[in-house]
């Protein structure tokens, strides 16, 4: 009989996270027969849109061997500036116009990160830590610090565009907004870039060894520049979706989420040293975090313990491979 699962498959983070998700679902459906239902799924999917796009962005940076903590501030900057601009100058523009502006602003801010990282060669953590402060400070100082709740009509309209809508057997409603398609689009596009273009392979190569990449003639600067622009664009998209779906543009939103997003990505198997990371793992990591957030109560853990549970999952998910690696190193000598 052929081996169904390779040893590598069994020890991968994706597998571990997948198993935890399944275990969670089994436990939850024992506790609540209605848990395994379409509403639970659509809630999960809806909750995963913004977080998922952020996570894909964060994963891309980790693969290249960097770390980005500024993406939430980029999202807020892009989303808030776009909304304010539309309200004051072009309130009747269609939603995709708003999306385009937000994405362009995001890409521009990403390009600023790119300049410091690719041209000045500064450490990514420090650059993005600095720009996190700068972008957020700039928005709040020069653009505005007030909540905007009267979004342009078409942005509100966007949030009502439903992909799926229905009623469950027990009479509860469920729906999945079209915004979810954005996440699917982002995942597909990123998959294409990473797996089917030389640019994507160069991102992996840089994450594996910058020096080797330089030596074989990869234009490291250009690749890094692209990464941060792309990540900025994704953040801009996530920001505007967040505003549309919550029907309010709040400049104090999102910032503070960056470490949880990175945690979800790392849980999914991306490594801080670069070169490793998959979309499957990223999506699984995000799913687990959202599942814990939405449904911890179902398996009998009070929601005040949410943060502890997520923290413990991160420690377990990263600690187990680290511990295995350490033991293997001691054995090999």
């Amino acid at each position, binding site marked *: 009989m052929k081996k169904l699962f390779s040893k590598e498959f069994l020890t991968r983070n994706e597998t571990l996270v997948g198993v935890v998700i399944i275990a969670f679902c089994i436990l939850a459906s024992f506790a609540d027969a209605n848990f395994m239902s379409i509403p639970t799924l659509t809630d999960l999917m809806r909750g995963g849109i913004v977080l998922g796009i952020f996570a894909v962005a964060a994963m891309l940076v980790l693969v290249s061997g960097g770390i980005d903590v500024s993406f939430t501030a980029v999202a807020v900057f892009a989303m808030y500036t776009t909304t304010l601009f539309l309200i004051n100058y072009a309130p009747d523009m269609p939603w995709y116009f708003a999306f385009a502006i937000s994405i362009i602003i995001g890409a521009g801010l990403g390009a600023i990160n790119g300049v410091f990282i690719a041209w000045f060669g500064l450490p990514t953590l420090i650059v993005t830590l600095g720009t996190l402060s700068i972008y957020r400070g700039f928005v709040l100082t020069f653009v505005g610090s007030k909540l905007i709740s009267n979004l342009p009509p078409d942005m509100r309209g966007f949030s009502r565009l439903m992909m799926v809508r229905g009623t469950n057997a027990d009479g509860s409603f469920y729906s999945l907004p079209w915004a979810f398609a954005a996440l699917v689009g982002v995942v597909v596009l990123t998959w294409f870039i990473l797996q089917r273009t030389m640019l994507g*392979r160069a991102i992996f190569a840089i994450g594996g*060894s910058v020096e080797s990449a330089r030596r074989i003639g990869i234009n490291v600067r250009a690749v890094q520049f692209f990464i941060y622009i792309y990540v900025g664009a994704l953040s801009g998209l996530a920001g505007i979706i967040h505003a549309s779906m919550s029907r309010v543009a709040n400049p104090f939103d999102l910032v503070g989420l960056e470490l949880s997003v990175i945690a979800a990505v790392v849980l999914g198997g991306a490594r801080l040293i670069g070169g490793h990371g998959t979309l499957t793992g990223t999506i699984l990591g995000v799913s687990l975090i959202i599942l814990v957030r939405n449904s911890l109560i179902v398996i009998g853990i009070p929601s005040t313990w949410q943060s502890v549970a997520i923290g413990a999952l991160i420690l377990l998910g990263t600690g187990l491979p680290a511990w295995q690696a350490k033991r293997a190193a001691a054995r090999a000598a």
Partner: protein
Amino acid sequence: MNTLDSGAKNTLIEMRSIVKNYTGVVALDDVDFSVSEGEAVCLVGENGSGKSTLIKILAGVEQASAGQISIGGKNFDTLTPRIAAAAGVMVIFQDFSLFPNLSVAENIAFSTQLSEERRLFNKGRVRQIAKETLIRVGVDIDLDARVETLPVAHKQLVGICRALASNARLIIMDEPTTALTEREVSSLLEIIRRLKSDGVAVIFVSHKLAEVLEVSEKVVILRNGKKVAEGPASDFDAASLTRNMTGRDVAEGRPNPVDPEAPILLSAKNLGKAGAFEDVSFDLHKGEVLGISGLLGSGRTSLAKALFGLVKADRGTLDLDGEVVDLGNPLAAAAAGIGYVPEDRLTEGLFLTQSIVRNVAIGRLDNHQRGGLLDLNGLWQEATHWIGELKVKTPSVEAPVNSLSGGNQQRVVLARWLSRAPKVLILNGPSVGVDVGSKSEIHNIISELSSSGIGIIVISDDLPELLATCQSILVMKSGRVTDKIFGSDISETDLAQRLAS
């Protein structure tokens, strides 16, 4: 054996009157260098002789200050890495410059894909390129394996394949054999022969070349930025290479015999660790210098580390002065009086960005503190004393240790351990990366230390070094001690045979 092949060979590389100045220093002074198609050339020289600079200029990494370069009959004013690569010059660096996280296939085909200026990544094509190249080299490596999981020899082969895949006409190999075992070296040489018959030229850059002499046609020796010798490989042997590299005969004496009355200092019994070494027993006497040799992969480094507790032996015992030493605990080993000077000075031995005095003082912290509080004066005085004792040449002990030459850096590591008055000192590759002059001085230090009563273990594959310093030599092969030789009884060639057989 390596006489002219049939047909006239065309000159592939022609470097004429190459000069390279770094601010105030002449790294290369009017050097001519040429390589023909299908020719293998050994480029030899000590550290700082200019051989690396010459290679960097040829690879386009650095630009010559003056001189002409032509590749395949075409003249180039300036070479960049891209131009050099396009002209078929490929360098396989000592670290191979591979991507550990990518598959074998992708590593092999990456530069080809780049030079074809492809935008899309075609997995099938990548596998095709990799497969063809592996067949051409005549080796079989799993195309989907991630490179980080491969043994060193396979990584090197992947590096060679990558160069070939992008139509290399000249492959430059930097220190190609240092990380290989004997068997791996011979299969490498086989591959080199195949490449040569395909018309690919090879340059070996090394300071240890006995192994590659047999497949080479020509030897070029550099010293202080000048070409001092050039000729057919058959005209050279190990001794003449050394003479030309250093400009003098380094005749080394033999060590003094051990006092037969000397008591046993360190005694290892049946030490073993699964997958590394098995059943190792020996006694080290006071004032004795014991060599442990073996090819790479013989378990010599694992054993050395196990003696210092950096690797935990599964079985066996270690006694020092009749007291049992805890296995797998470097702190216990150090406390018992064992010192260990590691193989890789730069990554394992030194705190490069820190000052010389701090690098020595780190060994004596415990003796200059009361309740955790350091007596900095006393600590600095003692460290400075040992720096002087070992004649480290530096304008200031506060200078960072990375400003020193290899030989002086090694003295700093030695000073750290000697300041602790060790009973046993384990030196792993004591003169790796040290120029020949400093090497003999380090050998003198070893002999002085042993006559002061310290027991010394030298782990090395440098046979002249072993013969010059050790009274007895243990030979290891696949984890076992296969031979114990008394140094005075054996010549270098005999020893080499016993190692390899």
